[in-house]
């Protein structure tokens, strides 16, 4: 059974967002998403400084089975990317909510978080 941490917010396209103490937001894909994809072999991460809008595609994650777009849960500017994923994308499979994060953004409007699904809503949407 896929894990869904209660402190995260989600898009129904399986991305998670976590607000950090410094006000940035960390983004990754859910445990359920990595299970669906299977062994992940490549990621294409955005460039630092890139401006993005909520729900637009920003990265690509590819498993042996299929390639999939990753959408941004919030609008804002990319401030940091997880370089470790370039050499060891399998971290996403083993640690989707911690070491397998994709990028951090400086949110333009933190109230956009309210449009995201909470853990319970995501859990029921991903089961359906």
């Amino acid at each position: 059974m896929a894990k869904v941490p209660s402190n995260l917010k989600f898009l129904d396209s399986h991305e998670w967002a976590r607000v950090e103490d410094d006000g940035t937001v960390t983004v990754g894909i859910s445990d359920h998403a990595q299970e669906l994809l299977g062994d992940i072999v490549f990621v294409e991460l955005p460039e630092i400084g890139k401006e993005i809008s909520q729900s637009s595609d920003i990265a690509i994650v590819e498993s042996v089975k299929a390639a999939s777009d990753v959408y941004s849960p919030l609008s804002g500017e990319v401030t940091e990317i997880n370089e470790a994923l370039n050499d060891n994308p399998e971290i996403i499979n083993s640690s989707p909510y911690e070491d397998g994060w994709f990028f951090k953004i400086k949110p333009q409007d933190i109230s956009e978080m309210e449009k995201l699904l909470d853990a319970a809503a995501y859990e029921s949407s991903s089961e359906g």
Partner: protein
Amino acid sequence: MNKTYLNEFHSAHNGNLVDFSGWEMPINYGSQINEHNEVRTNVGVFDVSHMAVFDFLGGNQVEFLRKLLPNDVNKILNAKRALYSPLLNENGRILDDLIVYHIGNNNFRIISNCATRQQNKLWFNENAKQFGVEVNFQENASIIAIQGPNSAKILSSLYSIDLKNFHIYQDDEVMIARTGYTGEIGFEIISNQEKGLELWNHFISKDVRPIGLAARDTLRLEAGLNLYGSDMSIDNHPYESNLGWTIDNTDTNRAYIGKESIANESNTKKLIGFYTEERGVLRAGSKVYFPGGEGVVTSGTWSPTFKKNIGFCRVDANYPAQGNALLRDKEINLHFCETNFLKHLK
């Protein structure tokens, strides 16, 4: 959905079950890459009981099969042996690929793909009649494949046999053929389900890991083995599917199905391998380009053994060493080679 008799095992051992041509089969048991590497370096066991087993009874099976198949069973009459062949229609197009087993005294068995079982049942029946051969479809057979460099050692804990490639051992309970779909030393064991379960449990008790169909696909691709429905289909003839070697015209008087049609094929296309160091996987349906021609990817994957993007593509017969393709709107460079990556890239 159809299930093999090992379905409960798969569910209970973390198997991710998917619909595979109407059969609920394990695509992986957690990680297809780990499973792939286990078969390349050690040993693994596959449930492939969804494939179709046909036994033939009575009549003139030799002449039936010499008409049915472009490869010639005369090659395997001297011993209990196996032979790979495509199955052609009258137009020389590929209906399926299969292995035919000479189980002694001019009696034969065929194992063919899962998705084509109904088609083959009808086709075999239609063609067997005139040779007085009865087609006996084995509804409840067990097929277990044990594959990998240590497979012979594991098998020797049960059977003290020394099989050469494509040779067969047989007793009252099992047929064991040294065949497989991985490019490794391996064996395929056909029995009833009761014996199959006993063998499966024995292998698992020897710490042999179960391997899903996803790893089976990357293993066969690295070994340059075609997948029916992807790399060849009813639209293709054998020459453009890298199967010219299976067309046996040694006996010029033999009239197998499709012979006349493929004799007239101009043979302009070819199935070849490609690989690239670039990031991303070029998948089936993608186009490839090179000076003077182009082609289409039939299978593409990330190779766990070589850690790069590999695949097969069907191209014009004359192709250079390199070409390119578009991957997510970006041009990437490709290297072309023979389809057997285990030989070419090692």
